[in-house]
């Protein structure tokens, strides 16, 4: 038994060593020693004292609290009269400070079934939320076409600017390189048949029908969808959305509608631009590396695609734009009210936006072949 814990008669004397900033003691050893002595059964009271010249701090308090809670269970009283007055005051405070809220501190336990159940309910709720949001968007669009929607025209212009022209550089880079990649991949195979000229068909068809709409939409999901989610989420945190509601503005009309319109308007235009850039990428490879004539390549491209192909791509682009707008705005407007919730909203917006784009691409592929477009 160490010097710090001593049994005198039926009383246990606990001496607390010096503890202050940057000096601490082995509270675990002290506690276990005291608890061992208490468990021996013939202790009737516990007297605490501070070692000579010692300072006390939270560790001292936590140690006494630990020992006396152990002793309380066995109805052994604690005597703090030899400790500084502050110690007993603060320890009394830990017991008396009232919780001024009615809620309990009990949390649901974590178990496999509980977690699974929560996840299932969350998935169900999300589907419901999405339905609800789409319904709200539709009625907002209806008000827009009837000219009753309240929103700021300048907002719409700003969103059009940030969604379209501001994204031109990244759209150019990605589509140009994809045109180049497509041409290279095609050339490697078509060379085997001496049919290099069909690179023009491949690039023109592949790019306008599939790649330009999909890749442009994915760029915008990361660029604009995430931005919308973060903007609306932050407005939620700042209670800006509540403020709009109390002034009688519909948050759907005021915040979501202009964002959706901006994406729905700009996406087809960006896809059209992406088509041109992608075909130009293929043209560069065809003329510079495959020794095809410029006029020959252009004529081949003209023969390969018709208006239907271009319009299909542009139509897909508008649909993807709306999907990106829906996921971005929905996550934003339904975001929680903390910094991490806004981050979650942005992440969810991008992930579900990209998944929605890929799913829609697959559906379009099936429909196009069934309808023979």
């Amino acid at each position, binding site marked *: 038994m160490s010097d710090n814990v001593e049994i005198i008669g039926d009383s246990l004397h606990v001496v607390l060593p010096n503890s202050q900033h*940057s000096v601490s003691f082995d509270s*675990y050893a002290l506690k276990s020693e005291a608890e061992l002595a208490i468990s021996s059964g013939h202790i009737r009271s516990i007297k605490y004292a501070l070692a000579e010249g010692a300072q006390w701090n*939270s560790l001292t308090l936590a140690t006494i609290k630990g020992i006396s809670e152990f002793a309380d269970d066995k109805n052994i009283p604690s005597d703090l009269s030899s400790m500084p007055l502050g110690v007993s005051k603060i320890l009394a405070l830990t*017991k008396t400070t009232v919780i001024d*809220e009615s809620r309990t*501190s009990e949390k649901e336990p974590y178990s496999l079934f509980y977690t699974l159940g929560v996840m299932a309910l969350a998935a169900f709720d999300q589907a419901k939320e999405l339905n609800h949001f789409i319904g709200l968007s539709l009625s907002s669009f209806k008000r827009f076409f009837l000219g009753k929607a309240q929103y700021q025209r300048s907002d719409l212009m700003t969103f059009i600017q940030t969604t379209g022209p501001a994204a031109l550089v990244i759209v150019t880079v990605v589509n140009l390189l994809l045109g180049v990649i497509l041409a290279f991949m095609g050339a490697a195979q078509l060379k085997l048949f001496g049919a290099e000229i069909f690179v023009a068909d491949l690039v023109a068809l592949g790019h306008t029908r599939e790649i330009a709409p999909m890749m442009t939409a994915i760029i915008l999901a990361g660029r604009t969808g995430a931005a919308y989610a973060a903007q609306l989420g932050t407005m939620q945190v700042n209670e800006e959305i509540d403020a709009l509601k109390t002034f009688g503005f519909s948050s759907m009309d005021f915040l979501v509608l202009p964002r959706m319109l901006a994406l729905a308007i700009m996406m087809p235009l960006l896809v059209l631009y992406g088509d041109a850039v992608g075909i130009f990428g293929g043209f560069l490879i065809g003329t510079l590396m495959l020794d095809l004539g410029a006029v020959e390549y252009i004529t081949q491209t003209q023969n390969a695609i018709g208006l239907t192909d271009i319009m299909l791509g542009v139509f897909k682009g508008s649909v993807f734009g709306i999907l990106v707008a829906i996921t971005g705005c929905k996550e934003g407007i339904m975001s*929680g009210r903390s910094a991490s*919730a806004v981050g979650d909203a942005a992440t969810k917006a991008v992930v579900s936006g990209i998944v929605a784009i890929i799913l829609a691409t697959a559906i379009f592929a099936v429909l196009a072949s069934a309808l023979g477009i």
Partner: protein
Amino acid sequence: MLDPKTAIGIRDLTMAYGDFIIQRGLEFEINKGEIFIIMGDSGSGKSTLLKHMIGLMKPKTGQILYQAGDFWASSEEERKVASQRFGVLYQSGALWSSMTLAQNIRLPLATYTDYSESDIKDIIALKLSLVGLAGFEDFYPSEISGGMKKRAGLARAMALDPEILFFDEPGAGLDPISSKRLDDLIIELRDGLGTTIVIVTHELDSIFAIGDRGVFVDADVRTQTALGRISDLRKSPPSPKVAEFLSRSSK
């Protein structure tokens, strides 16, 4: 150098945002173990003064002295060490939202002390029970009410057993009952732990209930216009504006 009984000394402090002077010529001392109130009208820079004292803003001229020395004349490393000796309760708690209450208190403890993991756990439980939040360790800030966030913020501010506790508008956003309970808690903590307490507030009920001494910073003349015991300032205010400020509640 500071008298051993003094916790903080402010010497000829001028605060400014760029060229815009907020306050000049501030000069006062805060004694160890007292509850010191920084009061003033809106825009007087009382929160800015707090930011200077806790190291978030650098004075334009003048000194802020702690027992360890001139705060802003010391190196960044020394300032970091000095900052561990005080705790700050921000206006709305400023709990880190991605962490539970226990993790919020744990971070400074695990970073700046050598306590073992089980000691840290015990200390977290102690601090939370001190503010009436025993058992709320695993709650996230978003799961508790505003008043509870403030209490949890206080538990975090006390994590490292600070010698000085700063409070920015402790009563703001609390109902009168919670606000009164927080005031009582502040007094109990001062009496029990002997902590020096600096409070920025304009709530008269709190000022009269718990303040020992205080300073009044004036937005119009941009300097301090009153300094001393709260009860003396109330009885014989040095300027009409201080009189008006301190008498509003009794009207």
